[in-house]
């Protein structure tokens, strides 16, 4: 019994140490955002900022001196919301087809679907980039500049098609029959009867697509430039420090961390309000086998 108690204490201790280790970089981001550049180089190191530099956040929010923050965040949001809507609807269409109708060749296409899930994105994205740039779809004016990122989502993402299929397959057959008798066409049946019932699948899709697109970096580097660029790329490449007189790269770091904190806020809010759905979505994405 004593041994058991000791192992329990050990496990608790391990958990505390590990969770502190995991939180430390986040804590570091927050305190660094509030430090002056020269505070970073003090020796011995000071954990808390000697003077809290709330002005970093002020500069970010109320001016464009450091980075075009609102523009970049707005771009990120535009990209993300449209992307989420596209994937949520188009994946549902294909998933519905796979779940509710019998057809010759369905098994074949279903295995094609499963195979495309394992396709590395880099392998499709680079050839897509070549085709899009030949079609002059790259570098179009503002809202159209996101077209090369939205277009590949129009067919739906394989993983979410699969998710919707699993969901729609659980609904009773009578639903369609009833809709049919009421004279509902197939698209109307899908849109008016099945989609309103697909809440869990829609929420899962939206949360995951939102998170993945909001944090997207590679695609944005390929396709976007200047005014259309998203926050992820801007914070890495376009932080300008007005009259910096401290040794490079020191002046950048606090501002990078400030932008980093602000960048995390929308996702953290989403997580705070939809934690249960967030974790459920993850589980849905991982238990598939």
């Amino acid at each position, binding site marked *: 019994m004593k041994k058991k108690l000791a192992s329990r204490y050990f496990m608790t201790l391990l958990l505390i140490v590990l969770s502190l280790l995991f939180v430390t970089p986040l804590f570091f981001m927050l305190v660094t955002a509030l430090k002056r550049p020269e505070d970073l180089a003090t020796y011995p190191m000071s954990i808390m900022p000697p003077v809290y530099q709330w002005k970093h956040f002020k500069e970010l929010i109320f001016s464009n001196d450091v980075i075009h923050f609102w523009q970049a965040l707005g771009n990120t949001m535009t990209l993300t919301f449209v992307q989420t809507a596209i994937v949520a609807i188009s994946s549902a269409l294909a998933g519905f087809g796979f779940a509710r109708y019998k057809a010759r060749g369905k098994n074949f296409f279903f295995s094609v679907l499963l195979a495309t899930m394992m396709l590395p994105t880099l392998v499709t994205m680079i050839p897509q980039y070549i085709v899009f740039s030949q079609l002059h779809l790259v570098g179009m004016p503002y809202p159209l500049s996101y077209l090369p990122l939205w277009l590949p989502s*129009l067919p739906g993402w394989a993983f979410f098609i699969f998710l919707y299929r699993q969901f729609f397959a659980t609904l009773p057959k009578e639903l369609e029959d009833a809709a049919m008798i009421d004279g509902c066409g*197939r698209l109307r049946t899908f849109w008016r009867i099945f989609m309103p019932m697909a809440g869990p699948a829609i929420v899962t899709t939206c949360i995951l697509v939102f998170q993945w697109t909001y944090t997207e970096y590679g695609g944005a580097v390929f396709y976007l430039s200047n005014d259309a660029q998203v926050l992820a790329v801007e914070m890495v490449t376009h932080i300008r420090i007005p009259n910096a007189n401290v040794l490079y790269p020191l002046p950048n770091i606090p501002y990078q961390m400030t932008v980093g904190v602000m960048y995390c806020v929308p996702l953290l809010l989403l997580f705070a309000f939809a934690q249960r759905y967030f974790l459920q979505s993850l589980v849905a994405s991982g238990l598939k086998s």
Partner: protein
Amino acid sequence: MSAHTPYMTSTSTAESFKKFLHREGTAFYGFISLWLVGLLVLQLFPMISALVLSFTNFNGLDLPNTAFVGWSNYLEALQSPDAHYSLGLTLIYTGLSVPLGLATALILALLLNARRRLRGLYRTAFYLPTLVPLAATALIFKAIYEPNFGILNLFISIFRPGTAYNWIGNQGLYCLVTMHLWTCGTIMVIFLAGLQGIPEEQIEAAKIDGANSWQLFRRITWPLLSPITYFQLMLGIINALQMWVPANILSTTTDANSFWNPKHALYVYPSYALQQMMSSQRVGYGVALIWILFVLVLVLTQIVRKTSRFWVHYAVEQEEGAREK
């Protein structure tokens, strides 16, 4: 027939189209048509054209003056020291980050599963890092590893004053792996859900039979988690082989022009391919490199698939149980 979508005709040839005119079949192809067209136009066509381009000297702009050069791109890729170096880096990264990430996630999940009090708090602590966008994560770790002012060196300086070790320059790969481990919360949550799907009675019964914790894990927990592990292993390999964003952010300066800079400390294989395409304008060679990567992904995932029957256990009822939770 009112619901048939107009995309129908573009999906299949005339003969097979007649066979498919059966109502349900038509509906099926109507609903998947968008996906099917997208698959052909946006995935298959670009990939095939990239395959064709990989045998040419295409520079990204001048398609009319592009000539076929046979296998020379592939031969160059096999001989180039840069390709060897970057591929080696990518393979070592994959070999380290994927197993270590899975192991860390599993250990965290097992620790959390055994503990009831404050579980939500610990879980949040492990999960929070995955909510930080990749670019921000890379910048945080870049600041931590900074040679002169990074928190890691300042911390070591407490014990060994004056430490100014260039972590990213000398141990870049391990910096990347550590960063990857920091974000293993996603897989941990998935493991945790799998663990909670394990029926309580089964564990009680085994305990009554006198099984110790290792036997419990080996005989009950692990077999039930192995399908999840298998799926995560596959995904992990695919993602690790095409990892390049954090490597580029960590090892280049924050200047837009240097982003495609060749020969930085963390010159992973995809970075090399992209650099060849974007700044050296050698698109033909770049897509050849990408196709080699694709073949590598296929080979490695097939190897894992072949070995899976030795260690992945499929138990249908328990799987269902896990899913319902």
